[in-house]
């Protein structure tokens, strides 16, 4: 793949950079522990601006990951151990800046792999990925398409895993029959709306109202909550809202005297939500993201390295900043490390081949490469996903549930609702 772009834009500089990258990949035999050329990993996500909360905490997590890996000897390739280091570029959630950043990371810094948040900036990077063959990862599988074979969604297959929470709820609390939903009108909210609609339909739960969409700039949620409660639903579903929305919505549900079940994709900083409402109110709140000190994560099937230690270290360094993105980028790195060591090389093509050779070691257990029907390519890693409930003020993993199982039974419903919201890969503009 590298040869492809050397032949296209061959200059002395490209040559130097690519040969530097190649030496980083192949390297020379080294004896000392992790004394080889450092392997550089690109981190291309928003670090400033309104979306920074989806990038910066992830970079903080990666720094901890790198320290832990380097202390344990680094990445063991065919020619010996290599330390790993991260090179970050702030793409400000803008496609043009992301393109510039990808170019810099690949052609100047010689990185072996680039992690992105994805979303709006991805289409700007896509031509660069195609031309250079660089391996990329995204947190948003809706970026996947058959056009780019080297883009993976290995951490979370948002929003498909949300079906596990609904299914768990239907089985464990069958008395809940009706639901309503609200979501912010953006690239994260809409596919999630379609997923929850499919999950509720599959579970035989009736939607009392059309999903209520609100603008991402909303600050006062009292009107939204008043509307949600107007039809007396058993379940209120908060879709995939950012914590900036989940908290005030929960606070308003409490203040407006909601007594039913709440289900949400995320509940980052749920301790603060409890402080704003009450322990009794939050009891039984269902969501999808466990605390990493949960004992269930020490089970055999979980592949995230030392989740409890990572969580403790993260909270020590960045108190109050823990959220889903804090571990997701690091979990991608776990997966990448395994693949690179299997391939014996950091070369993007070799790592990709090693990664997709058989099932992948997803953070929450062994998983398969999947997604052809939804994304046009099997580049999303799907397996079990935890259903988490708040019990006595603490998030507890209730169960790991299989996403493919659900999909094999109800895939047609998901496709139907995804199509209605224009979210299928071949419907994207």
């Amino acid at each position, binding site marked *: 793949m590298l040869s492809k772009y050397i032949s296209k834009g061959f200059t002395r500089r490209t040559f130097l950079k690519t040969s530097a990258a190649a030496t980083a990949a192949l390297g020379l035999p080294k004896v000392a522990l992790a004394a080889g050329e450092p392997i550089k990993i690109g981190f291309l996500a928003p670090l*400033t601006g309104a979306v920074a909360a989806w990038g910066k905490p992830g970079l903080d997590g990666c720094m901890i990951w790198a320290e832990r890996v380097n202390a344990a000897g680094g990445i063991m390739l065919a020619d010996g151990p290599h330390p790993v280091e991260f090179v*970050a570029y702030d793409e400000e959630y803008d496609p043009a800046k992301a393109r510039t950043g990808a170019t810099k990371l690949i052609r100047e810094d010689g990185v072996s792999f680039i992690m992105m948040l994805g979303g709006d900036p991805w289409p700007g990077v896509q031509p660069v990925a195609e031309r250079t063959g660089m391996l990329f990862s995204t947190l948003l599988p*809706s970026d996947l398409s058959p056009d780019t074979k080297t883009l993976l969604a290995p951490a979370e297959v948002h929003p498909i895993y949300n079906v596990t929470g609904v299914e768990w709820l239907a089985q464990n609390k069958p008395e809940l029959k009706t639901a309503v939903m609200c979501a912010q009108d953006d690239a994260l909210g809409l596919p999630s709306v379609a997923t929850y609609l499919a999950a509720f339909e599959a579970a035989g739960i009736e939607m009392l109202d059309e999903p209520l969409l609100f603008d991402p700039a909303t600050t006062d949620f009292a009107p939204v909550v008043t509307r949600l409660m107007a039809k007396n639903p058993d379940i209120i579903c908060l879709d995939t809202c950012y914590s900036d929305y989940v908290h005030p919505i929960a606070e308003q549900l409490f203040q407006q005297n909601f007594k039913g079940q709440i289900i949400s994709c995320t509940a980052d900083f749920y301790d603060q939500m409890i402080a704003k409402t009450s322990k009794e109110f939050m009891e039984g709140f269902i969501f999808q993201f466990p605390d990493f000190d949960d004992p269930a994560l020490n089970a055999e099937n979980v592949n995230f390295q030392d989740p409890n230690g990572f969580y403790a270290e993260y909270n020590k360094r960045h108190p109050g900043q823990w959220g889903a993105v804090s571990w997701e980028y690091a979990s991608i790195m776990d997966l990448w490390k395994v693949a690179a060591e299997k391939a014996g090389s950091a070369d993007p093509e070799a790592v990709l081949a090693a990664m997709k050779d058989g099932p992948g070691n997803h953070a929450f257990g062994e998983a398969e490469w999947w997604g052809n029907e939804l994304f046009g390519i099997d580049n999303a890693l799907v397996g079990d996903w935890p259903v988490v409930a708040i019990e006595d003020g603490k998030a507890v993993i209730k169960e790991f549930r299989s996403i493919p199982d659900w999909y094999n039974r109800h895939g047609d419903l998901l496709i139907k609702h995804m199509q209605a919201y224009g979210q299928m890969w071949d419907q994207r503009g």
Partner: protein
Amino acid sequence: MLKPMMFLLGAAALIALPHGLSFSQQEILVFMVINILLVMSYRLLTLTGEWSLGHVVIMGVGAYASALMTKNLGVPVPLGMILGGVAAALLAVLLSFPLFRMKGFYFLIGSFAAGEIIRLIWKRFREPFGGVRGISGIDPMPDFSIGFYSFDFFEPVSYYYFAGAIVAFCLWVLWRIEKSPVGLTFHAVHWQDKLAQASGVNLRAYRTLAFAIASGFAGIAGALQAHYVGTVNPNSFDIEVMVFVLTWAIVGGTTTFYGPILGCVLLTVINEIVLRGMGFEQARPLFYGAIMILSILFLPNGLESIVQKFIPRKSAAKSDRKAEA
């Protein structure tokens, strides 16, 4: 014959420029060239005294129009770019009916509202605008060869030459317009609108004309960007981007032709190269903001005022008319 010599030297320097830069700097250069066209088209509008907050959205109209026409109707990319400019100009004519009922501050905010409505329309109507995700996979400019140089439009150097040539041509047109009787009338509309009206100038028509021309060139800039990046979405044209255009124009100064170019080049280099290079990730907006404040405090007439000091009296006299008023 000093002038043609200077001109040739300048052109040679601009052609050589990207070869002295790193890859990412070449990318930044491409976007800077496009932004120069954007800010220069904005300047034409400001000549009539109106400051808009919708200019970046108008740029987006050109980008969306060109992207949709090339993608859905199979229009060739270069033609799509021109039609993108035309679409932006036509929309500007349409918008002029409500907007030119207002002046000054009201026009500023009115243009902002009009722009927000256009953006909400893009978000709301997934067909054909693609909703919040916008449009991706926009056709790139097809590669071609002119004998001694083959254009590969993935490479920033190639696109820089291509966009640079178009922008240079557009700037020349803008220059001609400004120096023509029409351009002089634009100035008159701004500074002496009562008088201009009394001498039979149709103020509204000239304002609309300036708005349409400015929007047309902004649309071309948008199309240039869309076919390079390959994607457009509503957030790429929001008020935060507009704020940057506004500051380039004001920090550079708008009384001379080169003022906004100075502002755009200097502020882009500071933000994208110097501050990034110094590693202030989180603090980058802080330094950028401080530099903006300092420059406006100490150079209230823009960066162009420094240049004017060093330029011989003759050419300074030319711009006196504008600068004084």
